[in-house]
């Protein structure tokens, strides 16, 4: 899928969580993407991240790195946050 659109969507999510409690910003973004994005969308943005990930806002990048590690069986699982929206 078009990385531009995915980057745009990820940054939009980021803008919401950036102003929440600081310990929920990165997990909030990671969780949201994990819960609502179909695997092919996540795969596409991980690939984009590998190519440098231009345009991704810093906390979004951090969240994606974390999600990617988790998907590859490295790193810790993304912790739950207080944002339980569906």
């Amino acid at each position, binding site marked *: 899928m078009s990385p531009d659109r995915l980057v745009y969507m990820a940054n939009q*999510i980021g803008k919401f969580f950036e*102003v929440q409690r600081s310990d929920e910003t990165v997990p909030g973004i990671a969780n949201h993407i994990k*819960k*609502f994005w*179909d*695997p092919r969308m996540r795969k596409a943005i991980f690939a984009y991240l590998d190519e440098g990930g231009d345009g991704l806002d810093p906390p979004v990048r951090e969240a994606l790195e974390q999600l990617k590690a988790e998907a590859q069986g490295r790193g810790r699982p993304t912790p739950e946050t207080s944002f339980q*929206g569906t």
Partner: protein
Amino acid sequence: MSLIQEIDYGTPRSKAAKSVSLTVDGVAVTVPEGTSIMRAAMEVGTQIPKLCATDMLDAFGSCRLCLVEIQGRAGTPASCTTPVMEGMVVHTQTDRLKRIRKGVMELYISDHPLDCLTCSANGDCELQDMAGAVGLREVRYGYDGEKHANPGVDTSNPYFTFDPSKCIVCSRCVRACEEVQGTFALTIAGRGFDSVVSPSMEESFLASECVSCGACVQACPTATLNEKSVIDIGTPEHSVVTTCAYCGVGCAFKAEMRGEEVVRMLPYKDGKANRGHSCVKGRFAFGYATHKDRVLKPMIRSKITDPWREVSWDEAIAYAASEFKRIQAKYGKGSVGGITSSRCTNEETFLVQKLVRAGFGNNNVDTCARVCHSPTGYGLKTTYGTSAGTQDFDSVEQSDVIMIIGANPTDGHPVFASRMKKRLRQGAKLIILDPRRIDMVRTPHIEADYHLPLKPGTNVAVVTSLAHVIVTEGLVNESFVRTRCDFDEFQDWAEFVARPEHSPEAVEKVSGVPAELIRGAARLYAKGGNGAIYYGLGVTEHSQGSTTVMAIANLAMATGNIGREGVGVNPLRGQNNVQGSCDMGSFPHEVSGYRHVSDDATRAMFEALWGVPLDAEPGLRIPNMIDAAVDGSFKGLYIQGEDILQSDPDTKHMAAGLAAMECVVVQDLFLVETTNYAHVFLPGSTFLEKNGTFTNAERRIQMVRKVMQPKNGYEDWQITQLLSNALGFPMHYNHPSEIMDEVAALTPTFAGVSFKKLDELGSVQWPCNANAPEGTPVMHINGFVRGKGKFVITEYVATDEKTGPRFPLLLTTGRILSQYNVGAQTRRTANVIWHEEDRLEIHPHDAEQRGVCDGDWVKLASRAGETSLRATITERVAPGVVYTTFHHPVTQANVVTTEFSDWATNCPEYKVTAVQVMPSNGPTQWQEEYEELSRASRQIAEPAVIAAE
């Protein structure tokens, strides 16, 4: 089956707590204080003759037929206007009363045309009934007394006629229009014998303010106001209670039938959402069910450029299944998906998502709620723990302050609007946040105390600013917040909203709303008693839709306006079953009851019952499906009852996505716009042809009952079942009640729901389970579903859809009373008389600058595309803002809307598009090409002629 005759108690129910005992004709009766004698008598089965009284209306006391005698009192008071008193002894039938009543009836009959045998109300006329009831046997004045003024029959309304010669001037119609509907379109013109009912300006019904709700027709005791369908067909012989299939109000109706023909739809007084009222759509606009455009045979084609070929059900189903299997084999399991319909029943929706999850083996299922209230789901679940409104509709009767945000109830939710207006006429205060001056801002006997005409896209800024005033002026309900909410989060939030950038004075600059209006509105909401918020798509259809929902939820918590009657946060949901389709697990990330697919325990429950493993990963949302289709990884789609090409944003992108798919299956009533890109057409059934349930905006589950056999051969759930069986995932339901039983077994909030219970109780509001066996009218009473209420920081982020020199105006979209969404149904009824085309509303100032006159064709262009339509010049919209509806496919309003969407849910930003408007000569090239494509793609091949020998 017989005609359901609801008891008319003559006057409304008293809600007083104290009760009073009396005797009526020797029978003891106890009723609430304030009850009329007439009603008390009816409670024990004694029907006092009456003409001007009916229990939908306050007593009026004009006909003098309902007289009674009361022991110890002189005279013969009217029983409809006389309240009961303790120990009263009432006689309803004495020689004196009989004499007086006969005299009254004689006068009525002497100047009434006596064409009873050929009168359309013959057998359904209260004047006839009363003549019988009082034993009228002769008319001493003769039958040829002077007749009432007869200016001729008014047939201007498409659904009912007005024949003044039959009018007995009982004023029931006038009062129904005022008290029930709240439109005040009728008056009694003239005096004494010459008095006659008339639309206010002595014009025809059609030309008047009348909104064709039909309340007056229902109230009329004679044939003066009568349904044209009754005049054509005759009176009905049996009736079945069912639920309106248009909007989220969920009005209950009696479908009154003659054989398999619907004679009329009469609002059902026992319907808890509508309490006996309706709007023009539900009452009158059912003719689409038998419209000639309905396609009743399945059709297939291998390419969208081929003409359609009519085939048997077997062939169509087998073809669709084989295509889905082929595609999955070639492109992978995730290359197909389905869309459930908010127009269909809960049971049908549940089956489509089941087919996708278990039959296709992925979670690529979504529903039209994506484009309307998905942010409500996210926002209310996050803050309160439940993806739904907090109240029942009755709650509004206890509200002191009503705040309407981004909703236009008189057009979108007309029956609830009438109930709201009633409360406002009783003195409740009104605050409106809307860029347009919607009708509720000023309508007869109602004027908004505050109208905040905010710039489209600035909801979060304005609602957060309301919170600023509440926090900085010490208006927070601290004891509520401390006991019911997470107090740490509250403190973070309070610090955030108190910042100077959220002050009304600062927000005025971005929103255009004068600071004193924000301050006044916030004070009124916080201090005015029970404050209730009702909101609509003007909140959700924004890039910050979910954030606005949470900002609203914050406001209600901070002021303690949650958890009891009269308050709450209430989404006015669009389609009849959009709440239900979400509840049933239509979203790609969650199964029924809003449980995420990654939850192992939940999945295990479904897997055990369904016998297949389920995917733990979320699937694609509609816009993601389209992106993936353009991208080449998504190739097949089963769409039940949704016209995504017309209703979803950015039409060109949608068209490209659909065109890239190899198998699009559309199940619908008509060849809707999306079928231009379809390969299989499965004819669907209407709500009149099926059994099932709908869930309205107040979480109320109500029965839909079949009144005729499906003209297409199958109910929609049966078609899904056929397809699933052909796909190799067998389903064996014999009746939708079995599907509901499965939902109940799998969904904790529905555990207590069954068709049997719905038959017994009429309706229930979920959660309905062991804790609440009869359902839950008001939520979060003793605590939030999530535990402590969550305050969320709501930072305003301006949309990236910005005006500039090329596109200097903001377009916002909406709908009107007589049409429904993409109009597939309402355009196929006489409702078109009120709305033949979509128009662009533009402020006189903007029109003048562009040399546009009222009625001119204009080109409406955005960066996504352009379309043409005609302009209406009006001050309802502010300068800089234009508005249109999307009911007609030729307009293609969504060619102009963009791909921007809510950050949390991808709900499209329909309400903000930067556009330019300029004079034009007519349709654009795209519109003409699209017309051509539509025409070509709807061709049906002549069946091959097989030689006889």
